[in-house]
């Protein structure tokens, strides 16, 4: 389309202005503040230039690296379980049945609910004293005493380091498995029918169809779902904040929670910004990898 050469920029101006103010200025702030010692609530004139001291501190800070490890542990279980369950369910329920739309609507629900509310619900379900989960575990354990050793008894779900990790994993799997399920299902339904038919005529059984035909053809979609989940794990904060606040001790303190607490509990905005840069860096790396598989610009010759 032929236009005055300034016109495109006029159309882009509002979006670029919002992106600059809302995302680029904060990123710039993070870089700036990471060189300063500045506490939350102080005037900017009280900020003290530190050089690279914050980065050296980050490098040697066991708290930060422990929380990176916690994020990886949490992320490993969450992403593994969600991918296995999500892909499994999509394969089993691929065939359209009557009422499929209704069930799919139900499965979308958890994705739309506020993370804060998800955290509140699970905190209530897992409450040590009044929680429904404990009550029924206890009942089953009393009915079948042999099961008591397998954990069918009243547990301090959010008060024990291992169980607290299990709890946040369960809540995340509950909320996000439908996401993997829906992406994989959409992918399965988009597979070319003639290829499937050819494989079927060649005598491939369900197992061979799935393992040698469908999953290899879905490689890209599976990778994209995996990467999107990994990225979301690093962004996740709200549910854990509500359920455990990172505790007990630091057993569920993921990196984004360490970032938040450094800024608002320790009030150390300079150092928090250094951690924010680390988190942003991790996310940008994953985003670039994700772009390799899912890039709206890729098939457009004109970019």
């Amino acid at each position, binding site marked *: *389309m032929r236009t005055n050469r300034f016109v*495109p920029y006029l*159309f882009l101006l509002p*979006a670029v202005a*919002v992106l600059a103010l*809302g*995302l680029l200025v904060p990123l710039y702030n*993070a870089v700036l*503040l990471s060189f300063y010692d*500045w506490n*939350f609530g102080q*005037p*900017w004139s009280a900020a003290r230039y530190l050089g690279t001291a914050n980065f050296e501190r980050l490098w040697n800070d066991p708290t930060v690296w422990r929380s990176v490890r916690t994020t990886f542990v949490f992320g490993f279980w969450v992403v593994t379980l969600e991918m296995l369950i999500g892909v499994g*369910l999509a394969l*089993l329920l691929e065939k*359209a049945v009557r009422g499929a739309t209704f*069930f*799919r609507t139900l*499965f*979308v629900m958890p*994705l*739309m*609910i*506020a*993370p*804060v*509310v998800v955290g*509140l*619900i699970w905190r*209530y379900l897992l409450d040590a004293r009044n929680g*429904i989960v404990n*009550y029924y575990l206890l009942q089953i354990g009393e009915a079948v005493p042999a099961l008591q050793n397998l954990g069918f008894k009243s547990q301090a779900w959010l008060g024990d380091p291992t169980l607290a990790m299990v709890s946040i994993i369960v809540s995340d799997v*509950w909320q996000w498995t439908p996401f993997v399920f829906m*992406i994989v299902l*959409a992918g399965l339904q*988009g597979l*070319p*029918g003639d290829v499937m*038919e050819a494989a079927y005529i060649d005598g491939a059984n369900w197992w061979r169809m799935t393992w040698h035909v469908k999953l290899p053809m879905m490689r890209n*979609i599976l990778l*994209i*779902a995996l990467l999107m989940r990994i*990225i979301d794990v690093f*962004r996740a*904060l709200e549910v854990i904040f509500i359920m455990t606040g990172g505790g007990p001790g630091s057993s569920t303190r993921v990196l984004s929670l360490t*970032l*938040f607490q*450094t*800024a608002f509990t320790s009030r150390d*905005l300079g150092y928090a*910004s250094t951690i*924010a840069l680390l*988190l*942003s860096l991790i*996310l940008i790396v994953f*985003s670039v990898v994700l772009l390799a598989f899912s*890039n*709206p*610009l890729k098939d457009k010759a004109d*970019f």
Partner: protein
Amino acid sequence: MAGTLDHAVRGRHRRIPWDDVSRYAALVVLALITLAPIFVMFATSFKELVDIQARVPRWIFMPTLTNYETIITQYRFLPYLISSAVIGFGATGLTLLTAGMAAFALARMRFPGRGLIAHTTLIIRMIPPAVLAVTVIGFWIAWGIGDIIPGIRFTLPGGLGRGNFLDGSQVGLMLFYTALNLPFSIWLLFGFIRQIPVELEEAAIVDGANLLQVLFRVIFPLMGAGFAVSAIFTFRIAWNEFILALMLTNRFTKTLPVFAAEFIRDDGVQWGQMMAVGTLIVIPPMLITFFAAKQIIQGVSAGAVKG
């Protein structure tokens, strides 16, 4: 073609009547796992304190509206609801307008810097709200940015609380929620605009329309489906987000998620009232899901399948 396969598969499975039965059984179990936690929240919000604290979970109880009454008359639920709605709709409107204009420019015009802008939006799209909160809040307070726009104070009749329309903290949140959604929305709408035949725009220009008229009169009316997906996802973030809202709002402009979290106190959790707020928070997204599940699935898979 898919139909042919379906027939083949279906023909093969006719002999095993258990196939569909087990499929439905699996679906029902999954639906129960999905809905049970939400149902427990609904039920608890209608329970008296004695029913909540009973040792044996009570599935049958006398429902009461006490919790809802308390949050409305003794807390500022209504002003916070208004604040949430203003921020949610404001961010959604701003996103559709700015993303629509940007997508139009990227889809239909050639200009230097086009590739750079396109790639930047794609790389910064994953920045988490926690990073924004931490790096913005210091300047926000030190420079009094939240106070720049004074806001219109309102008082609800019947002692139902006081709140604010559009002060700096609300405008700030709208800005951040719009920024968080823009990359996704721009690329989603970009795909939709690309599907509209250019001839429509060329015809409009021949008829003497300028570019703004082409955008608002020709393109936007054809983009209902794209706008719907984009609006659902923007509203979802703006309505549900907690961390930025917790840091940036004041006692007049809190959003509902921030309000809900306040029922966790040092002296215990007010479960009944908290579940009432939680229930009211999830009702709009659940209604949207019922009416627009198709659009949501489309949006979720947009990033993955179409790319």
